[in-house]
């Protein structure tokens, strides 16, 4: 069950909310407060029992229901919402300030005016700074322009998981700025699905003289749990990383990390393409031990031996 810590703020905000919206549909109220209609009705029933000391008919909060709408007819003095808490003010003010300082995301004029008004009502917040600027990306201007003018794009894109570069036509949907990088979210006509393209991996981009037309069923991805989600077709590697290879656990998403002796760490890591994982592990040399799967270990050893042979062939004069 929901704790009073979540419910009480809603209860305190409901009466002022309803006061400024006489006759609002209950369904709309529930949506605005992100609760079910059932929960909202329970909240309204509770408020109906509350009021000024005396708690007689003229003292209690009064609500009138008409059809599926609700109106406050007596507010018992709950006319305005509570001030923003420090955490609420921080979350909002820090985000607004970041938007104000980052050109090209939202209209900075509107953001600055909103920021000034929120700060006037909620107070100043110092000590948390968000830099939203991403690294410089050559494709950014063209991608922005295609989004503003709803144009399809032809891109040459490098896919690291398969180590390939391919040409494709995409219908841009939005630009995501996540973890210091920019991603174009677009309908990929070749893949027939919504894909994310990291801007620094777009080698070449051309605006096409045709409109961007993602199909109606193309939905933006939910990135709230991170850009990389576990997929059932992924494999899992278990690797023991020496201290010099521990950056891997910071750089790539991992499922689990177990501290080992001498600063080592054993991690569980998901991967879709075996070739990609072989490249990663091969590059780490002695700083990694492959615990699982055995096929990965065999593939790495085989590639390493092949590479040593080829290296010798390229420089026959060198001897070991």
């Amino acid at each position: 069950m929901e704790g009073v810590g979540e419910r009480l703020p809603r209860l305190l905000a409901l009466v002022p909310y309803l006061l400024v919206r006489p006759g609002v549909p209950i369904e709309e109220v529930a949506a605005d407060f992100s609760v079910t209609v059932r929960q909202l009705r329970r909240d309204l029933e509770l408020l109906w029992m509350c009021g000024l000391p005396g708690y007689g008919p003229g003292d209690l909060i009064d609500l009138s229901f008409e059809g599926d709408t609700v109106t406050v007819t007596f507010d018992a003095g709950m006319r305005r919402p509570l001030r923003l808490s420090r955490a609420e003010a921080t979350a909002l003010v820090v985000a607004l300030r970041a938007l104000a300082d980052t050109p090209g995301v939202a209209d900075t004029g509107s953001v600055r005016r909103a920021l000034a008004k929120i700060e006037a009502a909620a107070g100043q917040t110092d000590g948390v700074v968000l830099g939203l600027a991403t690294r410089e990306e050559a494709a950014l201007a063209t991608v922005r322009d295609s989004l503003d003018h709803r144009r399809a794009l032809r891109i040459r894109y490098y896919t690291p998981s398969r180590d390939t570069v391919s040409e494709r036509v995409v219908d841009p949907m939005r630009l995501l700025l996540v973890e210091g990088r920019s991603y174009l979210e677009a309908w990929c006509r070749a893949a027939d699905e919504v894909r994310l393209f990291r801007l620094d991996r777009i080698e070449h981009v051309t605006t096409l003289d045709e409109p961007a037309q993602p199909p109606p069923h193309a939905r933006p991805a939910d990135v709230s749990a991170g850009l990389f989600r576990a997929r059932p077709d992924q494999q899992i590697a278990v690797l023991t990383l020496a201290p010099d290879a521990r950056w891997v656990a910071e750089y790539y998403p991992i499922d689990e990390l177990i501290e080992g002796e001498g600063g080592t760490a054993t991690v569980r890591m998901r991967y879709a393409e075996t070739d990609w994982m072989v490249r990663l592990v091969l590059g780490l040399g002695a700083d990694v031990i492959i615990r699982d799967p055995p096929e990965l270990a065999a593939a790495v050893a085989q590639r390493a031996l092949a590479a040593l042979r080829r290296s010798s062939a390229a420089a026959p004069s060198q001897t070991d």
Partner: protein
Amino acid sequence: MPTSRAERLVNLVICLLSSRQYLPAERIRRIVPGYAEAASDEAFSRMFERDKAELRDLGVPLETGRTPGFDAGEGYRIARRDYELPDIDLEPDEAAAVALAARLWDSPQLAGAAHGAVLKLRAAGVEVDPEPSMVVEPRVRATEPALIPLITAVQEGQAVTFVHRRHPAVLPAPRTLEPWGVVSWRGRWYVVGHDRDRSATRCFRVSRIVGPVRTVGPAGAVQRPAGIDLLKVVAGSAGPPPVAHTARLWLSSGRANGLRRYAKVLGSMTVDGVVGDVVTVDLPGHDVATRWIAGLGPDAVVLEPAELADAVRARLAAAAGAVG
């Protein structure tokens, strides 16, 4: 049916808001529904303390004092001017900016706090679109456990201690910091401040803090230097980019496409019966270059410099021996 705690708390707020006098606890016990259910003085006292803490956690300005001219003793009230959100009137474009700001966070605590703020703005009559459609959408992840305690310490002006790993490859060490601010830069969180042990300005990556953040000393003890640009401190601490050096490589035809993005083809050459290209490429630091090239296995061979060729061969030999 017993009065629910939520109901008791709403009634308590309404009661204290409506009173100009400070109401003693005993009087509150008699008038606010629910407290009468307390079986003993001690049970009431526990109940009331918990309720006061709950309200203060929510930011309800609960005042304690005595009403002059009344001898009822110490009591409680809520001043309406401190409780109520002042008038706020946002134009539609400003409300849209607020909506975008509110969904910037990918973090349960911060997203929850932003949502709470939006609820209050809605209750103040501002229409905030729950699903603004944005062409450019920034998202900030803030899931490091140390983050919220650090933000709180910064806002309280309190020094902190924590155990921190300076680099993934070194062992963690304890630090004592007077924190000036918390900064997100290029998708990573840093805490900036005065490092007491080193007597210098330092910034620490928050994700490399191991275990809890503990406050030390009183609140209000930390003074942030006036006019300091925290973002600049963090950006400046990144250090210069590693020196690039040029290498000549052989790359197998149609392979090593990641490396080819930075390479210039000089000509073609057959090695070990395999057709490929001779390329020149500017590579970042020695370690990264060694790792990239070794990772490509037989698809890449270093022609020069010799030190890089040796480093790659040593790494490949280690990888070949790891299972043999």
